[in-house]
């Protein structure tokens, strides 16, 4: 029973409109299309939701207001008052990743967050931005973040490298968390889908597993967007408050 499985074909990038500027390949790919779609859906949700300014909101306005309140509440809880300046950035980040993940759940849709370069770009922006914010606010005192309070000197020699390592690993863990969740989820869906036809009469078993997995993947799509946003808030809190 030879099973022809190609679960990783779904991640290939197809150039739909080849564009070459200088030596750089800036083609419009399927990934670019879904990024544009995610942005369009996010803008549509908020712009169409804010059309009416009813005091008691209807459904669309409710959704737009709830999404704003969710992020604003998250920032207030985790960063405090100074975090309000960064609300547009974190809202954009959350919406982009959320709709990127969710659009990938549409059958034959492409999940652009399942590519490490996309998630690493976002994580690098967050990390570099948060570090610059910390250095701009505190100057050299920012380095006191790596030296915990009230620690004897002997332990400091061990502790400071560990603190530095755990700080500089943040962009990588942010990126890999989102990338691995998305890639592993979609790969599992494709593998079980491949089993459905290969198992003949018992094909309904992997089909049932696939249905359950789709529920799990929808949960993971929303959850990973939330985790990316809340970790950004926590890193921002570290940079602003230094503890």
């Amino acid at each position, binding site marked *: 029973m030879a099973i022809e499985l190609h679960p990783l074909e779904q991640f290939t990038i197809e150039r739909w409109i080849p564009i070459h500027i200088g030596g750089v390949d800036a083609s419009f790919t399927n990934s670019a299309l879904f990024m544009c779609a995610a942005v369009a859906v996010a803008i549509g949700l908020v712009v169409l939701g804010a059309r009416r300014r009813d005091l008691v909101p209807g459904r669309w306005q409710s959704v737009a207001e709830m999404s704003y309140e969710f992020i604003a509440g998250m920032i207030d809880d985790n960063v405090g008052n100074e975090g309000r300046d960064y609300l547009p950035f974190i809202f954009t980040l959350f919406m982009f990743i959320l709709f990127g993940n969710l659009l990938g759940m549409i059958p034959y849709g492409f999940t652009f967050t399942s590519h490490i370069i996309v998630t690493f770009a976002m994580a690098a922006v967050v990390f570099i931005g948060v570090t610059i914010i910390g250095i701009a606010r505190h100057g050299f005192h920012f380095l006191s973040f790596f030296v915990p309070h009230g620690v004897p000197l002997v332990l400091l020699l061990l502790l400071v490298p560990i603190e530095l390592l755990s700080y500089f690993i943040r962009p990588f863990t942010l990126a*890999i*968390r989102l990338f691995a969740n998305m890639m592993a989820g979609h790969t599992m869906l494709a593998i079980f889908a491949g089993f459905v036809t290969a198992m003949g009469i018992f094909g309904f078993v992997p089909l049932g597993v696939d249905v359950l997995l789709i529920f799990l993947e929808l949960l993971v799509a929303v*959850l990973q967007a*939330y*985790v990316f946003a809340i970790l950004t808030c926590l890193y921002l809190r570290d940079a602003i408050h230094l503890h």
Partner: protein
Amino acid sequence: MELAAAKMIGAGLACIALAGAGVGIGTVFAALINALARNPAAQVTPFAFLGFALAEATGLFGLAVAFLILFVF
């Protein structure tokens, strides 16, 4: 040993890390159930989901190493 065979074995071994993810996720939700059983009005569910995502992430780092071994080297 051929490189392809070694890659398969390496990727399979790297997936053992997912056992830790299973234990971690079980611990997080056991704590959630305990907390809600003692005090149903406690608002700890967002923390439970955050903890679940972070625990799962560690297991998926192991899976990422498996993918790395299989497809990059």
